[in-house]
């Protein structure tokens, strides 16, 4: 709504200003038309920037997951992200985009398959603008898929990625995206739309539910639980890589949420990005406090999980809530993630905390729109949050109704994604198998699935450099004549 009013106002003013000139040079219609073109170009320039940021999140997932894995499973994380991104791209282009955005009925779209020029998608001709938006949608689908594999590290067969990625990109994610964003079932429930600005449920909960289905059929890593069923710690090998992954994801999220405005009108993306930052910061604080209270240590990984949880939490409400609500949403997500990780760890082996950081925080984020949604910002037909009916004058029944609609999005996402995912993984398990054998798992997926170590020097002896230093360097500089062959780290740094 904001856009159309904004654009119309600008066009009216400009048209009035240009009227005398227009009479001689161009008609009002021509000016308005060219203004509309320029507006689209400016909007898509912003979406292009956002798309690049969202694709950068693939690197974030890569480093986060590799850091939380052991050294013997480092290279496989790289191969996984590259292959998944490739397959989901083709699946989205051929089928997924049409299912998600191709008009159609309440459940799936029926145009836009094998996206190409000259085609009509949901009644509109394919243009550069629709290509840009289609690519932006793909970046989201790829993020959702990347979340799935967080629970499956260090033991899944590579073939499972290939098959599930195709199903996910063509069917699973597009069905959810169509329901909420493509004019499907959840875009109008008794007049109220589900409000999920950038995808707390559509993207993050979807990924986490897929992760849950995979984990149920895959089981825990060897050695994760002792004979009595108590969880044991399997530390990831690099906290610096985890940190790099978290920061890359955090930065990418500005495109994820900010780009979901699809436009530059009113500089509204600025509001969305500030909300995003406030929630991420509060997520770090919430998780750090919670883990410190629980274990008397400021856990590195949990601080990272807190950032992600805060970001996932604010993803749905980022365009619907006021600034004061964003840190509350992020803080609760951060607190939630720590207790959820510790509770889930007793039963399910989720090495990166995907079920908590993306699943529970995704549910919380989706529901939080029904609590904090501001009358100034909510979608047309939607009711403001419960907060405003308790502490303000909004209708209580309407806001409870909106909260229920938000809950319905959670339920729908869970049921649809879980049903198709568990079926897909069951078929994979029954045919090619879902899990590597014990020996392969012990040796690590790097050498057993990919034929090379992620860190070869860790396992393969390397030759020394020559027989020592060149003779010109062995004399003088106060180095004892006998020293070069026994050089130590201290000496060589002189």
């Amino acid at each position, binding site marked *: 709504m904001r856009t159309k009013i904004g654009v119309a106002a600008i066009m009216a003013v400009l048209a009035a200003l240009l009227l005398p000139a227009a009479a001689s040079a161009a008609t009002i219609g021509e000016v308005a038309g060219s203004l509309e073109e320029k507006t689209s170009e400016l909007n898509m320039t912003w979406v292009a920037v956002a798309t690049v940021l969202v694709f950068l999140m693939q690197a974030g997932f890569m480093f986060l997951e590799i850091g939380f894995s052991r050294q013997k499973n480092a290279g496989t994380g790289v191969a996984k992200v590259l292959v998944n991104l490739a397959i989901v791209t083709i699946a989205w282009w051929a089928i997924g985009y049409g299912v998600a955005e191709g008009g159609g009925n309440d459940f799936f779209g029926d145009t836009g398959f094998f996206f190409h020029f000259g085609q009509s998608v949901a009644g509109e001709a394919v243009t550069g603008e629709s290509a840009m938006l289609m690519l932006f949608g793909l970046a989201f689908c790829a993020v959702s898929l990347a979340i799935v594999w967080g629970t499956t590290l260090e033991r899944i067969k590579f073939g499972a990625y290939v098959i599930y990625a195709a199903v996910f990109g063509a069917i699973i994610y597009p069905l959810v995206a169509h329901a909420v964003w493509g004019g499907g079932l959840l875009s109008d429930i008794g007049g109220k739309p589900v409000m999920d600005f950038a995808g707390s449920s559509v993207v993050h909960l979807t990924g986490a539910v897929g992760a849950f289905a995979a984990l149920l059929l895959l089981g825990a890593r060897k050695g994760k639980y002792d004979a009595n069923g108590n969880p044991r*710690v399997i*530390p990831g090998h690099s906290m610096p890589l985890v940190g790099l992954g978290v920061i890359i994801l955090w930065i990418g999220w500005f495109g994820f949420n900010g780009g979901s405005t699809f436009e530059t009108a009113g500089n509204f993306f600025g509001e969305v990005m500030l909300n995003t930052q406030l929630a991420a910061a509060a997520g770090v604080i919430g998780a750090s406090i919670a883990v410190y209270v629980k274990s008397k240590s400021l856990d590195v990984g*949990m601080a990272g999980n807190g950032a992600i949880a805060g970001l996932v939490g604010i993803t749905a409400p980022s365009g619907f809530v006021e600034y004061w609500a964003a840190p509350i949403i992020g803080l609760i997500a951060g607190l939630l993630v720590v207790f959820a*990780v510790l509770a889930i760890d007793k039963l399910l082996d989720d090495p990166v*905390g995907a079920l908590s950081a993306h699943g529970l925080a995704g549910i919380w984020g989706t529901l939080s729109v029904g609590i904090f949604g501001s009358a100034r910002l909510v979608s047309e037909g939607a009711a403001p949050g419960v907060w405003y009916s308790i502490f303000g004058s909004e209708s209580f029944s309407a806001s409870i109704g909106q909260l229920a609609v938000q809950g319905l999005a959670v339920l729908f996402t869970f049921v649809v994604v879980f049903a198709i995912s568990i079926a897909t993984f069951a078929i994979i398990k029954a045919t090619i198998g879902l899990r590597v054998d014990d020996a392969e798992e012990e040796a690590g997926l790097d050498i057993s699935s990919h034929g090379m170590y992620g860190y070869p020097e860790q396992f393969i002896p390397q030759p020394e450099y020559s027989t020592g230093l060149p003779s010109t360097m062995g004399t003088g500089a106060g180095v004892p*004549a*006998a020293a070069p062959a026994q050089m*130590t780290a201290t000496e060589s740094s002189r």
Partner: protein
Amino acid sequence: MKKIEAFIRHEAFEPIRTELLEKGFPSLSILEAKGSGRQKGIVERYRGSTLTVNVRPKLKLEVVVEDKDQALVVETILKHARTGEVGDGKIFVLPVEEAVRIRTGEGGEEVLQVHSDEEATV
């Protein structure tokens, strides 16, 4: 000939090496070792759970010397490796039957001798 194996703290190595070099014993090896003794393991905290690592990182220093030099080397190690706290490590002395310099094939105690300066600069 005697082989002296010393399990020491990492920080003790550099002063020991410096003094042994000054006293004419440049030949030694170190290995990164993990071991347990009277010192307790390390409790790590990871993602809100605890993990006890029962072995600690130490250095294993190996020096082979003529019998007459054994006491001197052991004293040097003791001098620098001892802090008085649990975890200082242990020294073992073992008999060595033979020593061969690979480059020349010569054997016997003389291969433990320090090189002359001209030889050592390569």
